[in-house]
């Protein structure tokens, strides 16, 4: 079975541009989460989506947005890019427990390396 896939693998943008990152979860997983990992730090939570609804949002500005499609794939959009947005963007899918809360392990994709110049 295919794992979580992300595209593109690498991306170079300039300040002020916008970017769209894509993620396909493991078959059968309905929850997708996005994380940002700056070099040398642990991943930080950006969004969680389940059944096309936002279920959680981290401490990120409104320049960051996401959506989930009927096939459970997801897109992360970042507008007005800043140098500080340079990071590895990770997508993770998971099964949900009672009440729609993701309590189990998360399966991560390989990430998209975004460089903002």
């Amino acid at each position, binding site marked *: 079975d295919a794992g979580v896939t992300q595209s593109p693998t690498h991306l170079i943008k300039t300040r002020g541009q916008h970017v769209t990152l894509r993620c396909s979860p493991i078959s059968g997983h309905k929850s997708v989460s996005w994380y940002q990992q700056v070099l040398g730090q642990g991943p*930080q*939570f950006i969004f*969680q989506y389940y059944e096309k609804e936002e*279920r959680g949002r981290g401490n990120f500005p409104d320049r960051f947005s996401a959506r989930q499609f009927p096939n459970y794939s997801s897109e992360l959009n970042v507008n007005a890019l800043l140098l500080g947005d340079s990071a*590895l963007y990770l997508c993770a899918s998971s099964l949900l427990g009672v009440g729609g*809360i993701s309590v189990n392990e*998360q399966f991560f994709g390989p990430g998209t390396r975004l460089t903002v110049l």
Partner: protein
Amino acid sequence: SQQGEEDPQALSIQEGENATMNCSYKTSINNLQWYRQNSGRGLVHLILIRSNEREKHSGRLRVTLDTSKKSSSLLITASRAADTASYFCATHETGANNLFFGTGTRLTVIP
């Protein structure tokens, strides 16, 4: 902000030795998970320990959890060069829908 902190930040050992990494966190949790990351790529789940568990084993991995001290440890026994990676603890806080990751421990196993 990040929930947990790992200690040490970096660890270098000889192949065959044991490696111990510690994680401290701040709030009430449902479970704590450990992940491995090779060369800044995707994270791989290693083990999950629930808040009502105190110890768990998986192959060469042993995890302990002390909720009174809000701390966990990951022990890798008989380390191999292939264990070289960054290791992160992640907490699932009560009522939250996401994981909070620590700062990571960079483990280097010297052949």
